[in-house]
């Protein structure tokens, strides 16, 4: 049980840390709105509160110090200057690290921890508060819980008799405290005798219904220590006249009560003043306090909006949300997928009906289709999340990387509200982290080099997200030195990735960074990765059905562009037939389609063929052959889909025919039949048949013609 609550705590911490980061980023950007500061305070405060419940002392102590600084800020006792903001940012990072350490059992950097604590200390007033968080101010029932153990201790508790005089002030009745329940709690401790003292009760004619006239004399015989007896009255301190006399501890009692009096700044002054007013002669119809009370209440109301205005504003801000299990949404997405399939089946059935006039049905069917698409978009929107939290985490990555390399970089983010599928966001985290670390480590120059190059000492890394014609585009642009092409080429030659005499275009050299096993760092820095190259980044992106590209300008910087599909559940595909089988090719990878004639085909080597398109040769890759399918007839594939790979390599996929272009629902083959080379997934078509969705990249990669042509092209470039 507590395990799952602790999981909730860490989940909540993620959200609270994001809120903290978001607020700090806003503050860094110059937004010093009190509500922003308040929101951070609350977030850190909640982390502290939760951490306390699980005994995470390091986290509590640090969050407390952090929170105290914010308390100073929100009370206008402290100004947010550049230096403080930087400290707060680092503290926020460290808070994340502490949460991570608490969750995963890792170690924290003790020296860093102490440095930050000391730095935060300089901004906070001297601590008076005791950080041990003793539950219940007066000791509470804890001693009671320990009684079993104490009984065995040398000093066994003696029965003690306490004489208690308890006279509530009228103010007590407004706080929901009920004498009866207090007596009940005392009775549970031992023998209790209660005597009501009603001597002060006036006659009915002079009684003020709001006044308190009753008092009680209690005699309690108990083994409980005095502190426990006192704890019963904890909530009514200052709201009653109370004396607790133990047998033979008059002195101790006086001391204890004096200490208690000092602890609570109860309002006896106001209380007694009211008491006098109430004791004034009774005025029958209109009680005197009434007119007085009204202006007071009105004043309170008038001042309330002022105090609340910030909150009002906030109330209009965040829209109400609903927390739903992901699984439920995914079930819905699946059902919508089936609905789309169902629609195409229905359309097919109607077409097969042989009815002369199907116009009305078609109109309705069109409506069905539009509705299905609306529902699908709506459901997709549920899974879609803004990239903002992801981008915020990246700010931390850049800060850490900057600190580790001794460079100064700032991350500028754009399009944070761009929404992307949840899974895409989750799986983008690692690639983005890697690219950003690389940008700091290899892209941005050292401050002195930047100054020498006439740039600002602080490097700028721009992370942006945008929607671009049905895709999501994520761009990471740095203003560093750009790709060191001679060096990259040399490494590629050394590692045997390209022939020594290869002549490559600038773009091709830049894209060598994505080649497996490529690492430009002279020694593997512990920052950009431990032998993990950009090829892993590329695989992660292509695994999401996306593409990644790099462009670079020497001295000006590099830009990584990641293009991702909006959703992982449906896509636009071209329905083709290959050796009497129906298949789907993703539209995004197709550049052009054409019908070929014999004079366009040239042979290459023994087995290969090239397609001549407007004077350029492109290797032909027969999909049927690539998939190991055999045509019953001698019919040649006569339709070509021109596709382009990540590296800019073009290839003509030969298929038998093109049928249709439509939206298809992606059904994963994982767990059904494992990985099939050349096949990305499957879908269900309108006629109910299953069709494979092809993966052009892997088909081309496996094609000997394409490989031969590519080598030849490189060699011819070299000569």
């Amino acid at each position: 049980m507590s395990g799952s609550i602790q999981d909730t705590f860490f989940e909540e911490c993620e959200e609270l840390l994001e809120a903290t980061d978001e607020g700090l980023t806003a503050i860094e950007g110059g937004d010093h709105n009190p509500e922003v500061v308040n929101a951070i305070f609350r977030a850190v405060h909640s982390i502290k509160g939760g951490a306390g419940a699980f005994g995470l002392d390091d986290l509590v102590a640090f969050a407390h110090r952090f929170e105290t600084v914010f308390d100073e800020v929100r009370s206008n006792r402290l100004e947010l200057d550049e230096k403080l903001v930087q400290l707060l940012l680092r503290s926020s990072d460290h808070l994340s690290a502490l949460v991570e350490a608490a969750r995963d059992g890792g170690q924290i950097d003790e020296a860093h921890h102490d440095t930050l604590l000391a730095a935060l200390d300089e901004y906070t007033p001297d601590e008076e508060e005791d950080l041990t968080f003793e539950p219940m101010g007066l000791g509470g029932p804890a001693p009671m819980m320990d009684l079993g153990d104490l009984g065995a201790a040398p000093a066994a508790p003696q029965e003690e008799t306490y004489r208690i005089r308890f006279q509530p002030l009228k103010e007590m009745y407004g706080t929901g405290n009920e004498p009866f329940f207090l007596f009940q709690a005392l009775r549970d401790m031992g023998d209790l005798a209660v005597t009501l003292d009603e001597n002060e009760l006036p006659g009915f004619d002079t009684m003020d219904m709001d006044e308190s006239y009753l008092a009680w004399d209690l005699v309690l015989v108990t083994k409980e220590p005095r502190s426990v007896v006192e704890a019963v009255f904890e909530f009514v301190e200052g709201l009653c006249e109370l004396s607790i006399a133990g047998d033979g501890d008059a002195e101790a009692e006086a001391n204890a009560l004096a200490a208690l009096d000092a602890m609570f700044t109860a309002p006896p002054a106001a209380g007694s003043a009211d008491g006098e007013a109430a004791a004034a002669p009774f005025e029958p119809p209109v009680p005197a306090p009434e007119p007085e009370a009204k202006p007071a209440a009105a004043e309170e109301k008038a001042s309330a909006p002022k105090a609340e205005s910030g909150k009002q504003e906030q109330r209009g801000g965040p829209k109400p949300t609903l927390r739903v299990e992901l699984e439920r949404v995914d079930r819905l997405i699946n059902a919508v997928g089936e609905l789309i399939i169902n629609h195409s089946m229905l359309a097919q059935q109607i077409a097969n009906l042989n009815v002369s006039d199907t116009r009305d049905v078609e109109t309705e069917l069109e409506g069905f289709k539009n509705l299905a698409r609306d529902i699908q978009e709506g459901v997709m929107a549920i899974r879609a999340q803004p990239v903002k939290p992801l981008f915020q985490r990246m700010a931390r990555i850049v800060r850490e990387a900057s600190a580790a390399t001794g460079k100064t970089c700032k991350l500028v983010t754009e399009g944070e509200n761009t929404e992307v599928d949840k899974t895409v966001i989750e799986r983008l985290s690692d690639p983005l982290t890697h690219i950003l670390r690389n940008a700091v480590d290899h892209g941005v120059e050292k401050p002195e080099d930047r100054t020498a190059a006439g740039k600002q000492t602080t490097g700028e890394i721009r992370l942006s997200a945008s929607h671009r014609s049905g895709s999501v585009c994520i761009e990471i642009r740095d203003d560093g030195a750009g790709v060191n092409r001679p060096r990259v080429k040399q490494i590629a030659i050394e590692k045997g990735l390209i022939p020594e005499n290869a002549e490559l275009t600038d773009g091709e050299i830049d894209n060598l960074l994505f080649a497996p096993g490529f690492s430009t760092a002279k020694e593997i820095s512990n920052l950009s990765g431990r032998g993990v190259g950009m090829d892993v980044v590329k695989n992660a992106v292509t695994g999401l059905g996306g593409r990644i590209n790099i462009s670079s300008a020497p001295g000006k910087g590099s830009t990584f562009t990641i293009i991702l599909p909006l959703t992982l559940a449906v896509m636009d595909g071209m329905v083709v037939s290959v050796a009497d089988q129906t298949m789907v090719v993703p539209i995004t990878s197709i550049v052009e389609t054409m019908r070929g004639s014999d004079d366009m085909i040239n042979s290459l080597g023994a087995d290969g063929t090239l397609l001549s398109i407007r004077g350029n040769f492109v290797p032909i890759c027969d999909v049927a052959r690539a998939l190991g399918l055999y045509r019953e007839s001698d019919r040649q594939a006569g339709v070509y889909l021109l596709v382009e790979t990540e590296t800019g390599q073009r290839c003509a996929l030969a298929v038998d025919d093109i049928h249709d272009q439509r939206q298809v629902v992606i059904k994963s083959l994982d767990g059904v039949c494992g990985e099939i080379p050349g096949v990305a997934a499957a879908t269900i078509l309108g006629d109910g048949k299953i069709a494979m969705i092809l993966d052009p990249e892997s088909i081309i990669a496996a094609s000997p013609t394409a490989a031969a042509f590519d080598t030849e092209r490189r060699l011819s470039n070299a000569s």
Partner: protein
Amino acid sequence: MKTKVLAIDDSRTIRNLLAATLEEAGFEYHCAVDGREGVDMYPDVDPDVVITDINMPNLDGFGVIEELRGEGINSKVPILVLTTESAPELKARARGAGATGWITKPFDDASLIFALKRVTGAAA
């Protein structure tokens, strides 16, 4: 009849902890995620006791107490403040608004139940 508790806290962790502790101790548990929701829920839940956090968005704990004790709702039930703060002036302010008592976070189960029994007389 179980004693009905309305807990108001913006921290999911604290809400879960309260739910576990209170339900195990035989209380009927209701919760709200901020002060505004808590006050809005109050008439429907009609609780025997309210536990409220202080630092919350949309209406803080003091606001909750003021509104519950105010003329509109005129609640007489005990209101316990659940807070990490133990500053005396904070307690005084809460009490001035009409709070019955306070529980310091992190609370241990026994203290929480002890406090609830003291203010509601719950047998739980």
